């Protein structure tokens, strides 16, 4: 299927980009710990966060971004594996069902946790963090998570139908 190949390539590109981003974030966090404020000013501005001078808050925020990007990279990796199973003409397999279920749960976490994180951070008097949540994109992420969980259940049914079919033959 031509569209499957296009999809797989696009996911590969996104996955590589995210891996590079995660690595860069890791380097930035380390660089901040070593060199201080000037090196991460650009990154903080890009994330549209207004963070005060409390260093520990910056380190926590950077580490949090790193963790989130790692989680999304893992989601893409699981999706890649599922697409590989599709390419091998084995769409209704355990690996696809398990991966879709994991992807769904991780996406729900990614949709909920950043909002909670910034909310909790803004509660602390030592931090100067503005409460900033993109409601739309979080909702889309949660929606996609639920969609993947539903897909996982439907694929489980399809897998059972396939197994029954093979037994009958």
């Amino acid at each position: 299927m031509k569209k499957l190949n296009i999809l797989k390539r696009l996911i590969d590109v996104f996955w590589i980009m995210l891996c590079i981003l995660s690595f860069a974030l890791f380097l930035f966090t380390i660089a901040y710990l070593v060199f201080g404020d000037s090196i991460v000013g650009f990154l903080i501005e890009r994330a549209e966060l207004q963070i005060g001078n409390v260093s520990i808050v910056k380190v926590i925020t950077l580490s949090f971004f790193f963790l989130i990007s790692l989680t999304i990279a893992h989601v893409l990796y699981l999706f890649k594996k599922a697409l590989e199973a599709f390419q091998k003409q084995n769409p209704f397999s355990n690996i696809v069902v398990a991966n879709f279920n994991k992807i769904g749960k991780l996406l729900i976490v990614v949709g909920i946790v950043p909002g909670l994180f910034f909310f909790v951070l803004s509660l602390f008097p030592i931090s100067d963090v503005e409460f900033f949540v993109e409601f739309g994109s979080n909702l889309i992420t949660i929606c996609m998570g639920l969609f993947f969980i539903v897909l996982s259940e439907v694929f489980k049914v399809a897998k059972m139908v396939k197994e029954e079919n093979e037994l009958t033959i």
Partner: protein
Amino acid sequence: MKTANRLKLLIDVFSILFIIILVGMLTSNYPFFFKAYNWNALKHTPVFSFTLIYVFLILKSILTIFGILYLRKAIKAILIKEYFSIQVTKNLKKAGHIFVAVGAGYITVFIVGLLRIHNVLQFRLEFFQIESVVTLGLFVVIIGLFFILISYLFTQARSLKQENELTI
């Protein structure tokens, strides 16, 4: 299916949100899109680019609403346990094609529009504008392709199920 119910609820919320956005776009005399992006330079934008982006945004919203409604229909069929019915595969395929068109159109129209603005007004075109447009567009294309793929796989599952029922 509890998860499918929750998903349907969220999809309903999304369709209502998109309809509100569309009504807002059609009724506002100054497109709030430009306010949202804070591109004040666009007040003096050449008519072609302005019209191109504005008309596309309205078209995109209408198509997205249709895409979401098709997805809603598919989820409704899944809720009544008709997982591999024609209704599911047909609606997923339609939603997929719509999302691919919206994503590809988004990339093309915005880049053409932005480049024109850049040329005519010497508007400073930042790398991040193009990067975010391309990323978002590709993301929508990926979702569309995935729906088409799922529709194809569900069609396979349907024929397996039919074979199974025939054998029994």
